């Protein structure tokens, strides 16, 4: 995995954990709708990153992407 892609995937995994996981002790929700949308965009980017990885791995192995 390239260093920049590794960095991007790690950042998105981190954002997902900080915003979507962790214990909810309740309290007021201070996230706005726009912010939440941003997170989902990030997750889509991550999935497409995995698809890109797949192609890179095949190219690196000397093959042709199968699809």
């Amino acid at each position, binding site marked *: 995995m390239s260093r920049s892609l590794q960095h991007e995937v790690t950042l998105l995994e*981190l954002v997902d*954990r*900080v915003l979507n996981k962790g214990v909810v*002790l309740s*309290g007021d*929700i*201070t*996230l706005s709708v726009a912010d939440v949308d941003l997170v989902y965009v990030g997750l889509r980017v991550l999935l497409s990153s995995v698809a890109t990885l797949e192609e890179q791995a095949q190219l690196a192995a000397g093959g042709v992407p199968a*699809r």
Partner: protein
Amino acid sequence: MIHVYGVVEGLEELPPLAGLDDAPLERQRIGELEVVLSRAATPTSAEVTREAVLLHAQVVEELLARSGALLPAQLGRGFRDDEELSDALRAQAQELGERLQQVRGCVEFGLRALAKDASEGETATGSDYMRARLDDLRRQDRLVAELHEPLASLARESTLHRGPAGEIRAAYLVEGESADAFRKAAERAEGSPAVTVVCIGPWAPYSFAGTEARR
């Protein structure tokens, strides 16, 4: 507004960091539990910016290194005052105590995996579509049996999410002394020619901190 970073047990000392809005970190005991928090004058302080996410995560990571057990708090929730925080913690004290016990001595690893021959989204006919979806499901079952289950057997607890296109997403709560063995097993899977595997960690146990939706 009070911003909570996590519920801690056996915290040696606060990390030398400022919290959100440059406010100092504080530790506060509520009943049997201890939390680490910071206070901001304005109610909008928990606005989600890239900086806020990174800072929250950095504080959590520093707390993990200094604690016996830690439940990271979700970012984006604030308490108006000490009373509101204290009420919320007392109401969940028993569950939080049990969760602390469960994550003690553990770190989390995250995994995403996709079979390399997963189908493309575009299909010509309805039956092509159904066939492609069935293939995706079969590949997903294989990922679960051949990748997820062996890794889960090295973990104290795990979560599994099956994605719509045959991908899987999992998290593993791994004891400190098993972390090397887990990482080696994950690296072997990352080297597999048939599967795209991304395993990232160790994290603080974000995916195992919630008292809801467990098993």
